[in-house]
């Protein structure tokens, strides 16, 4: 077999190289980056030794500040200092009213449905602000780890809908981070605990962060994490505790004036500090002074508990619901994992423990556990653990539907269906001679379209007229492993098609992202060229390496001589192209190899499954039939 002997000097397969990949917890209040180093997942610190990066971005006179530097200016420069931006991710301008956030920012009124915040650096979207946080974490990782990253696993609340996930991916793209996978935060926490302690059974993950609450019911078995159900509230978190306490302080002070943004900030800071202190003491003395406002008073632990109890009860309700969705009784839950800084609040631990009737797990730092789990998953996805058995199976958090006559939402994919998933549904026309149909994609559990989130609209046009009810329009929803949706529609009699990647109105279009990337790049043209060339060369190596490895395993078994010759030819052309300096030619040659291998790849993927199903012993069958 000549094919496998082709090898160029210096091209022998390199010894297994550790690929650098990180896990990022992009949180409402705080963000973290972690990586697996010498076999252990650790969060990475900045030069000051701080692991936690406050998710705060300030558009200052002299440039952009992220984290602690920005937070220090939150009180003096509130309108240019952006906090809790995660709450705006994937939200439309019309959603802002429903967000219970007394926001100090000024929103710019624009044509675009994406809300933009006015800053001295111009109008910025949530995606742009988030990308600044990601850039900061990426820089930290590269400086700490000493090399470029192959990619990142970024966590999102399990309850994030399609628009919010898409916005997160857009932010990563803008930060020039390769997203290996979007991972649900609770699943990441389970990864951290599961791998460390080898748990098997049903586990509840209670994740109360600064601005979001999630509960997930997972089953861990034989290295597979299966999400049975998820629930929560994407606008409820520890910030709301602070709000409740701050409101109480304001009420106690007897101040009748509407507080200024600076005072709101200060009250929130004091409320937060009081809450944190009350985790270890039973009473705190609070003093708030700003301009003409002054208040001093006591807050006891039980007073605080009374203030936040209604909020905690809301989370317990979501727990009940998720257990019901998962068809799991409270007694079946083996462990409850606590995630998120707000689970340090004692009242939370107590009420959760009471509901699940067991002491919740708190052995891993609740602020770091998600980033650590994401780092472990990133390490596996980057290919550093080829023999690792870990596999995460996720579900879709909210049902996906389509608008039908009368403004009703008909569900096409039900929530908690494992992803990826594809579902097709047939529709027909209701008028004679109709040649177009509008497709309105919605997400949510309610019956009426108006109560669901609108994700996208598109038209299927130009199919031949039929009498009413005779056209056959098949609408297909495909959700990928990141939970992102693509919808296509086809009139089956004529074959007329239309499709849309559901990059909802709240995300950014591809061209917007490209423009932003170009604007932000101060590289010279040549740099861009050499970078693209280098990228294509690396890609070419990867393709050849993967092909050779595959051929060695089953080339003889799955390919005819003609097919082998074809593939060998394309492979040689690619090696030739790679020696040149034109990235476009390399790209075309890669494409050619991929085309030549198309059937081969398909056969391999099928035989892959066959192999997985082989080796079921005879006894196993005998055992079944006796039942």
């Amino acid at each position, binding site marked *: 077999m000549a094919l496998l002997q082709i090898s160029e000097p210096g091209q022998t397969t390199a010894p297994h190289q550790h690929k650098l990949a990180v896990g990022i917890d992009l949180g409402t209040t705080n963000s973290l980056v972690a990586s697996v180093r010498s076999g252990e997942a650790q969060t990475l610190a900045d030069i000051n030794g701080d692991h936690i990066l406050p998710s705060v971005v300030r558009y200052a006179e002299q440039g952009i500040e992220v984290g602690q530097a920005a937070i220090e200016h939150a009180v003096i420069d509130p309108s240019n200092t952006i906090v809790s931006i995660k709450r705006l991710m994937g939200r439309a301008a019309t959603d802002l009213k429903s967000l219970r956030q007394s926001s100090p920012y000024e929103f710019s009124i624009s044509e675009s449905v994406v809300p933009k915040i006015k800053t001295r650096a111009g109008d910025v979207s949530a995606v742009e602000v988030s990308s600044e946080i990601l850039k900061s974490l990426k820089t930290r990782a590269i400086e700490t780890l000493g090399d470029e990253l*192959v*990619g990142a696993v970024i966590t999102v609340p399990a309850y994030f809908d399609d628009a919010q996930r898409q916005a997160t991916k857009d932010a990563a793209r803008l930060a020039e981070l390769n997203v*290996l*996978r979007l991972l649900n935060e609770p699943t990441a926490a389970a990864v951290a605990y599961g791998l460390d302690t080898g748990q098997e059974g049903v586990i509840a993950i209670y994740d109360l962060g600064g601005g979001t609450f999630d509960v997930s019911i997972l089953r861990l*078995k*034989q290295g*597979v994490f299966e999400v049975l159900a998820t629930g929560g509230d994407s606008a409820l978190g520890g910030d709301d505790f602070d709000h409740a306490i701050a409101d109480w302080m304001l009420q106690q002070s007897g101040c009748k004036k509407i507080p200024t943004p600076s005072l709101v900030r200060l009250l929130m800071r004091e409320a937060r500090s009081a809450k944190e202190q009350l985790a270890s003491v039973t009473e705190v003395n609070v003093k708030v002074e700003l301009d003409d406002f002054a208040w001093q008073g006591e807050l006891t632990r039980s007073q605080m508990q009374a203030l936040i109890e209604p909020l905690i*009860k*809301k989370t*317990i*309700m979501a727990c*009940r*619901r998720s257990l*019901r969705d998962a068809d799991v009784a409270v007694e079946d839950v083996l462990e409850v994992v606590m995630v998120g800084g707000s689970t340090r609040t004692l009242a939370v631990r107590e009420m959760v423990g009471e509901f699940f009737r067991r002491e919740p797990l708190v052995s891993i730092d609740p602020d770091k556990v998600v980033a650590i789990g994401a780092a472990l998953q990133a390490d*596996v*996805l*980057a*290919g550093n653990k080829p023999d690792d*058995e870990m*596999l*995460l*199976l996720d579900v879709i958090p909210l049902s996906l539907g389509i608008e039908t006559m009368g403004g009703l939402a008909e569900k096409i994919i039900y929530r908690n*269906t*494992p*992803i*990826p*998933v*594809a*579902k097709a549904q047939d529709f027909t026309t209701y008028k004679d001679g109709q040649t177009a149909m509008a497709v309105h994609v919605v997400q949510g559990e309610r019956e009426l379209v108006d109560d669901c989130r609108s994700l996208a609209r598109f038209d299927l046009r130009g199919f031949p007229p039929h009498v009413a009810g005779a056209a056959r329009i098949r609408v297909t929803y*495909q959700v*990928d*492993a990141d939970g992102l949706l693509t919808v296509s529609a086809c009139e089956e009699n004529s074959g007329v098609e239309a499709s849309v990647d559901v990059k909802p109105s709240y995300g950014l279009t591809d061209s917007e992202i490209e423009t932003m990337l170009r604007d932000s790049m101060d590289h010279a043209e040549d740099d861009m060229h050499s970078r693209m060339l280098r990228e294509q060369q690396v890609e070419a190596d*990867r*393709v050849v390496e*993967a092909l050779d490895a595959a051929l060695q395993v089953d080339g003889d078994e*799955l390919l005819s001589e003609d097919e082998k010759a074809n593939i060998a030819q394309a492979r040689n052309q690619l090696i030739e192209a790679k020696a040149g300096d034109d990235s476009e030619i390399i790209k075309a040659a890669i494409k050619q190899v*991929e085309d030549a*291998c*198309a059937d081969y*790849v*398909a*056969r391999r*993927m*099928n*035989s*892959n*499954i*066959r*192999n*997985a*199903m082989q080796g*079921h012993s005879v006894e*196993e069958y005998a055992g*079944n039939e006796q*039942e």
Partner: protein
Amino acid sequence: MTTDILTQNFFELFDVPVSFEVDLDLVQQRYRELQKAVHPDKFVSASDQEKRISMQQTSWINEAFNALRQPVERAIYLLKLKGVDLNLENETTMDAMFLMEQMEMREALSDVQSKDDPLAALDDFSVQIKNKMQAMAANFSIAYEDDQLDDAKELIRKMQFMQKARKEVDELTAKIEDELF
């Protein structure tokens, strides 16, 4: 050379006998084995073509898993394999007794909120529905094995009725819980 899994029926795919009685533990076990072979996480740095195939195969396996593990879905799929397509919207003939029972249950359900302990009453409903579903499933299995496909079809329709009732009970439970907390 190799069969395309997308053309296999769900039972073949999971390597279990074509029957209404399935070993759910085995189905789960097979599901994990299949997922480990095809899931997109195993193809993160693969070519676009491999990623696409992986997504199609995983979607197919997920669809199969959903159909196999849920009794009503499984029953519908078995009839589909026999060439019986349930045109559920257009065929609603149902025996009068069953419909009467259904109406009585709906009435009782609408009174539930005036009960002393509505949640306990709803739990009773859930148990009743579950028991009826189990009995119907057992009857379906017999009808299917005896090739009494019309009976089997009728049973599926009844089970769907019960499924809807269960959903209503669940929704009502959630609503009452919301009011209590």
